[in-house]
């Protein structure tokens, strides 16, 4: 009787204190039947990687509203690879200018969701990606 649940780490790296968006996403993923590990504010890249590894998550969801995404996301992606977590899907939400998105994807971020993103869409992107992997 195997029971497979999608596990998602929702983390806010960096210094901004706006966690409303992260909480909305956490709630939406929970309501879609996922197990969401919520780590709270002001996480360092190392803390995020460590939590992702210990919790054996399928997805890391980052929320960055400080404008520091071009500094934080590539560092986090580097550490994801260094920790051997290449099969973990990393998604990013926040205020992200369009021109940054290709660079972030180049660095290994799977998807970027801006303001107004439909939570059902985010759920579907995650489910499709996990299903495709199995």
């Amino acid at each position, binding site marked *: 009787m195997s029971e497979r649940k999608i596990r998602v780490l929702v983390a806010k790296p960096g210094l901004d204190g706006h966690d409303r968006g992260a909480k909305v996403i956490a709630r939406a993923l*929970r*309501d879609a*039947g996922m197990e*969401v590990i*919520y780590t709270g504010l002001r*996480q360092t890249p190392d803390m995020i990687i460590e939590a992702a590894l*210990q919790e054996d998550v399928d997805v890391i969801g980052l929320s960055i509203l400080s404008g520091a995404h071009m500094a934080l996301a590539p560092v986090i992606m580097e550490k994801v690879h260094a920790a051997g977590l290449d099969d973990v899907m990393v998604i990013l939400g926040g205020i992200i200018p369009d021109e940054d998105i290709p660079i972030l994807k180049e660095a290994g971020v799977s998807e970027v969701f801006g303001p107004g993103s439909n939570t059902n869409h985010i759920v579907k992107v995650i489910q499709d990606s996990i299903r495709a992997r199995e």
Partner: protein
Amino acid sequence: MTLAEEVLGGSRRALARAITAVENQAASAPEVLAALFSHTGHAHLLGVTGAPGTGKSSLVNQLALDARKAGKTVAVLAVDPTSPFTGGAILGDRIRMRELAGDSGVFIRSMATRGSLGGLARATADVVKVLDAAGFDYIMIETVGAGQSEVDIARHAQTTIVVEAPGMGDDVQAIKAGILEIADILVVNKADDPRAETTVRALRAMLDLAHPGDAHAVSHHGMLMRVVLNGQDGAPTEANAWRVPVMTTNALSGEGVPEVLTQVVNHRQHLRDTGEMARREMARIINEVDAALRDRLMADLLDRIPNSELETMVARIARRELAPQQAVSVLVAAYSPIT
């Protein structure tokens, strides 16, 4: 190298994966558990339970910090509830444990109850075995925010801490059956609250009302049973029984927490000295085999009963043609795997 060998070799990634396999009851889980089982039995299993918001996570955070100062390694298993409607869960205990980040002597894992009601998840005992085999000195199991009857933790832990916060109910609440009865150590957290002293007094009075002695219950065939203090069959006497200490802490500042850890060590020693450790271990094994047998037989039986047959029975019960017990008799007679 097999997954189990990697766990024994100290790989944290393998440990995380083994826990997932066990938690999901994946096809590989029995093999992993079988390979790890002979390496278990080293860790001290510490349960922390109490109502939501009493400070369980913060206390576990401080206990782990203090245990690390004493040179011990710590695994934390933090259980949070699964939504009964969506099957999803938000696991937020790590928020209070950020001070433990970056320490290779600490491993934190969050776990959802996945429908289990006793305050823990069904796979808790097996996940604890994986952590035990990985060599941690302490395994701290934090239950969901418990009400009055989530007492499963007493079946799993060797030492159970029940956390109370000041101002939670009166002295009648304190003598009700349930969660307070399973405590080996009672902690009144948020001790800076002026009402803490009243709560401590109510709990001490509750303990004085009880028959002195070892209040701990053991599990026998799924029922929690009290240890009889008659000194027979190696059972403890009143003279050498454990007296449940009532302690105060401030889990945010860490005040009082080293003293709690000292009592945990004392309690472990007490369990050893009185032979209680071995007796609880036996009770736990009986309970576990019991539950595993039930799960296995149940799964086998359900596999054999065709869905259509089950639906027919349900419909007949709904029409009041059959009582549920009669339907069960018919189904077991026709499909039982035991002949």
